[in-house]
């Protein structure tokens, strides 16, 4: 069981994430969008969306800091565990709370605004459950396991396990001992990772990091081909490709 959950599942999730993204990039670039509903409703979105997204960005940064950076490194620069813990607890709670609040508002908006609700697919609903669940559990572990029940040093168990997965020597025993809430959080996170490329979440990979560096005006050439000789593809497809 441990083997299945903490060795097989992570690799399946990673395979789904990478494979699904590649597949979608090759097969369905047209479907790759934020699927924004701002046209229908923008008053609530204006607050909820930035709240959620910025919260989530800090949550993700926090996960990277917590999982990827080994404890020895922070100790090497003389940051004691207690200080790290305090920072992670406070920053994590704030970011998590912002993301959860933002998501709650977004779901509320989706539910109450007619056009937005009718534009919601089943895929979206599943995604909301998983994402909301992971976020709530994540906030739960931060506040309950790390805060109320006293500090839990996940950097001795979850952190090494996470890194070992990528170093191809996964150790399920590390995870067998962690608190139950943590287990659920990690599991839900893994499921979400696996489904990530198949939901609208994929728009995160479209982050326009090149925008600040490109010129404002873009010219493209038809590429010297004749009139509309391409295969019967999308009528709107750029004339330059293929």
């Amino acid at each position, binding site marked *: 069981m441990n083997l299945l959950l903490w060795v097989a599942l992570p690799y399946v999730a990673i395979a789904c994430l990478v494979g699904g993204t590649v597949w979608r990039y090759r097969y369905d670039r047209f479907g790759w969008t934020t699927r924004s*509903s701002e*046209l229908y409703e923008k008053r609530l979105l204006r607050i909820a969306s930035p709240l959620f997204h910025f919260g989530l960005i800090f949550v993700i940064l926090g996960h990277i800091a917590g999982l990827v950076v080994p404890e020895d490194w922070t100790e090497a620069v003389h940051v004691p565990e207690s200080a790290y813990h305090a920072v992670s607890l406070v920053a994590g709670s704030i970011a998590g709370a912002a993301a959860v609040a933002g998501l709650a508002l977004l779901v509320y908006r989706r539910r109450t605004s007619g*056009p937005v609700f009718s534009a919601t697919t089943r895929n979206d609903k599943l995604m909301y459950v998983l994402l909301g669940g992971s976020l709530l559990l994540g906030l739960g572990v931060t506040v309950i396991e790390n805060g109320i029940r006293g500090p839990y040093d996940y950097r001795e168990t979850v952190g090494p396990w996470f890194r070992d997965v990528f170093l191809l020597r996964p150790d399920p025993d590390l995870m067998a001992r962690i608190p139950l809430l943590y287990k659920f959080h990690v599991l839900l996170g893994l499921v979400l990772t696996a489904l990530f490329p198949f939901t609208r979440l994929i728009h995160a990979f479209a982050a326009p990091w090149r925008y600040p560096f490109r010129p404002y005006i*873009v010219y493209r050439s038809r590429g010297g081909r004749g*009139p509309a000789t391409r295969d019967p593809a999308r009528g709107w497809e750029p004339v330059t490709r293929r």
Partner: protein
Amino acid sequence: MRVMAQLSMVMNLDKCIGCHTCSVTCKQAWTNRAGTEYVWFNNVETRPGQGYPRRYEDQDTWQGGWTLDRKGRLKPRSGGRARRMLGIFSNPLLPTIADYYEPWTYDYETLTTAPLQDDVPVARPYSLISGEPTKVEWSANWDDDLGGGPDIAGRDPVVQKISDAIRLDYERAFMFYLPRICEHCLNPACMAACPSGAIYKRAEDGIVLVDQDGCRGWRMCVTGCPYKKIYFNHRTGKAEKCTFCYPRVEVGLPTVCSETCVGRLRYIGVLLYDADKVTAAAETEDDKALYEAQLGVFLDPEDPEVIAAARRDGVPETWLEAARRSPVHALINRYRVALPLHPEFRTMPMVWYIPPLSPVVDALRDTGHDGEDAGNLFGAIEALRIPVRYLAGLFTAGDPEPVAAVLRKLAAMRSYMRDTNLGDPADEAKAAAVGMSGRDMQDMYRLLALAKYDERYVIPTQAAAEAAALEESACPVDYDYDEHGRDRTSGPFGEASGRPAPASVESFHALKDRQTTGALVSPGDRKGRVNLLNWDGKGRPGGLFPRRGKGDE
């Protein structure tokens, strides 16, 4: 000098009868799918009026187009790169569906299924967005022909720039129609605002297109475009805009809106421009100097130096030839009677307009004078300030002089030709008074009044391959399922993901669906369209008209 060629359009507003044929045929060809119900690549506005979407010209609200920053450099009015990236999670400057209108249909079925009763059954309107019953309160041309009266027309942003006292007066005095498509700008603000870099200008013909595979639905372009001529498809989550009917112009056919224009007022032709000068021209400090600045970007296709540079820069010989014969070049550069729409937005628009003389003529007639008499007309252009000021608000950032100059030329041409037609000797003084020769008068008259199809549309083809190799001929009509037997029109990630359906399949299904469906809002209706793209104006495209009866097909 870097010579580039662009297909552009001029519309002669005096001839527009406001019939909306252009809008309807454009919609049939391009935007009769689900998600684009509210999208009008071509719309016709009554001016004075608010336009579509409502008050789009008010850039204090919508922040479209460009401004100059403190150092005098161009910057998108809604903010530069950093601000756009920080604001990417929500875009409060996006017009909502209420600023356009909520598209609707009627439940016609009740008309036939209602039981026998005393009252006449009515078909109630249903929203095409939510499927719920709705109240129709606005549309793409709600204020057509000044409908709604001074209250609505008075909120026209151009009117509001002219003082209130004059306003009431002229609302009774004139009205004209303004058909609008995407301007296919030289300096497009939609493109500058696109975080994905999915909007591009084609190097060959200057058409501005959205790469549907590159668009990620950030909606920034809608804010960027000051003309609000790029729309968000709310089903596919992608931006769509006027394509200048590129599949048609590539094979030398005019756009659908031009082809079907009842007033025959649209001209399409090639303009040569110097790509190196565009930015500097758009940075011209004085709003009122932007018209002249843009004229300075255009190149003379007769000039040997320009021709040599064009050859060097790879402009094909056929395009140079077309540029010399271009009606658009003649109207914009030679006769200088066409003006850009809102040059002060600094996008360097490429669809220009010949301002209408009719407002002045109408106002004259209202005062009991002969509106066609040249002496009266000349006096009126000077005296009836309001129509001229209004037109200047549209076409020259408020500078009345260029507008008045154009109107004088049009009035002179009328008068000159009237003499000729009545058998009187031509009065060269009339031509000379507006800086033209009698010959110019005749030529301009020919172009504006008589020009036939091939004079109005001088469109070089993309010559590399044969016209026969059209998309349609490459795909048989029974191409509705892919090799695995899956329906090509729907993908696993929702509406319109996966491979698209070829146009011919769409029109085939469109007919079938239209004739058999009873649903108000069904995802199936996205297939519904009659394909006008490959229609050359001859014969009748299948499905455009209902069948008359048996044996008629």
